[in-house]
């Protein structure tokens, strides 16, 4: 893992006076900590899109990406299941138009991770206990059900496994409806590493990885928000 790379990403954002990383930067930070993220390419110029679509492969996801926009879904900047280069080009124009005024507006071309189980992993800083990691049901259920658990960093593998066991919806991690049991060791590693980010990178205030999708058994962070102090 590369703490230096993560710090460089943070410094860049701070130099630009930003309090959040863009999704693309956030994913790079996570990848630097060995957290599995979607394969993705940031496309700033329209002419680079076709190549990106070919490299990621259809179907794919296109997301409007700008550092100041924290919640893309609410702003209608996410298009899933894009099936052709032509469709991608049209969506590119649409997303860029919707982000007019954002200096760093770009489109993130992202592999479409297929999986029906969405989880959330996060980091918060408690005023008493410092960096705390969250785990729970992801996607829209995060806010609706608040089926979540917390542990203070650093996490031992046992803590991470207990967090998974503690949520009411824990059965989602088991083999259900033809889907395989989740790779809990990989999930535990994500939780432990998010805790490590909290301990090692003081300027990271909050993290949301939502959703973390189970692609088969393997968890992948599909969207990421990193808030800086």
């Amino acid at each position, binding site marked *: 893992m590369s703490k230096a790379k993560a710090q460089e990403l943070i410094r860049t954002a701070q130099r630009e006076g930003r309090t959040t990383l863009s999704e693309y930067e956030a994913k790079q930070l996570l990848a630097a900590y060995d957290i599995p993220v979607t394969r993705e390419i940031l496309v700033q110029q329209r002419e680079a899109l076709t190549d990106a679509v070919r490299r990621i492969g259809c179907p794919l996801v296109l997301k409007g990406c700008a550092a100041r926009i924290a919640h893309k879904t609410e702003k209608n900047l996410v298009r899933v299941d894009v099936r052709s280069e032509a469709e991608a080009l049209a969506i590119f124009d649409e997303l860029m138009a919707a982000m007019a005024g954002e200096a760093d507006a770009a489109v993130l071309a992202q592999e479409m991770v297929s999986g029906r189980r969405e989880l*959330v992993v*996060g*980091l918060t800083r408690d005023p*008493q206990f410092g960096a705390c990691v*969250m785990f729970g049901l992801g996607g829209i259920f995060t806010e609706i059900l608040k089926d979540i*658990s917390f542990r203070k960093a650093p996490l031992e593998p046992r803590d991470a496994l207990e967090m998974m066991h503690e949520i009411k919806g824990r059965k989602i991690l088991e083999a259900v409806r033809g889907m395989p049991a989740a790779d809990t060791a990989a999930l535990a590693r994500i939780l432990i590493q998010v805790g490590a980010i909290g301990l090692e990178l003081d300027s990271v*205030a*909050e993290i949301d990885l939502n959703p973390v999708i189970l692609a088969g058994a393997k968890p992948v962070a599909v969207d990421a*928000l990193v*808030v800086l102090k």
Partner: protein
Amino acid sequence: MGAAVSTTDFERIFHPRNLAIVGVSKEGLGFGAGICNSLRAIGYGGEIYLVNPKGGTWNGQTLYPRVEDIPGRFDLAIIAVAAPAVPAALEACRMKGAAGASIVSSGFKELGTAEGIALEQEILAIARRGIRVIGPNCFGIYCPRSGLTMLPGPDLSRQSGPIGFSSQSGGMAVDFANLGKSMGLQFSKMVSFGNGADLRETELLQYFGEDPETRVVGMYIEGVRDGEAFFQALRATAARKPVIVNKGGLSDAGARAVQSHTASMGGSGRIWPAILRQANAVQVRSMAEMADACQAFTLLPGRVYRNLTVLGGGGALGVAAADAAETCGLSIPPFDDALAGRIDALLPKPGSSPGNPVDVANPFVAPRTLKEIMRLAASDPRIDLQIFNSLIHHYKNMARITGRPVREVTPYLELADDIQAVVAETGKPIVVILFNPKSGMDHLDVVEMFADARRAFVQRGIPVFNTLSEGLRAIGHLNAYYERKRS
């Protein structure tokens, strides 16, 4: 944080050879005089030196005008003078070589005034020069072994026991001391530390962790000074002995200025329970639940209990037991036919059922028969704990019919002896549920009999709970702790 407390300091603080009470008013009943009365009543054995600037005598005892005038040495001072006079009194006690001082007086940081905060800073500065301070704004220490008490009331028990308890709130401490006495819980040491200017939750937790007299630690917490140090101490202590925590104030106060869902959902109402679980502390939500948990942890052998028998009667016993058990991750497995048959042969007919649960139907089944049933039930190798749901309140009816007092017609002593014998013989603990539906003014004789019965059971090492669900909840705490204990 002050320097780490040496065991010697704590030894002198909890078992002081002599005491000084600074601030004993001659008129009325101030804190100082009240504490002196309590100490005499509980039978504290050392010298108690009293200080009052006016001198003279009080109840035949010399009042020394100044701490400096005290002729002998003392290990612990109790300071009850007005807040502005506290720093000078504390410094004088330090100069006299006292190991600690409990400052009962209020009028410090809790006021939120500049003067109060400055006075508390002065106290802390003196403490750092070499005297440990409990308080200010607290009730201080109760230690049955040394006959040391500063809690209001002269009637606390002298019986020392396994529970160490610390509390920010003085009211919680005095209530718990009294509740404990009523329930038969026994304390090693109890400390109400109020503002906690010097000694507070984390050091006391570490001390209780080391203290061989303390087997179970209880804490009432509102806030901690250093979350990291507290967490480390909590985890280390819980790895050695059970720590039961009642955290007051768990509501998620106020929206915080955060951007992520994680931070918006991570208020103290979520983080505190997580921290306690991570450290393998037992979280309770009331002092009654704390008392139940203390009883389970002190009277039941420390292990995980899975399969129970339930024996007794009462409204929908089987259904209620099954529901409560499931909530706590316990099960009540049915007996096989052979065992059920042997139990059935002992039961009155009709209306009984050999279970498990065993419904005896008739509340007047003789203890010797109940004893036989409990022995048989324990022979099921799956069973690791038995619950006896008592129906002794029905003996009030028998008392009325026979014209004899309910205490005489209720065979609770025999029952207590029998249960104790079955536990000894089978190695499987029995928990008694003493639910009294007859507790009104017309049944004060039943209330009294229940208190007597409770004492009889607890004295024999048999835990008693008021209701089945409270008992099972306490057992659930025990299970959770021993399942997760880090070895």
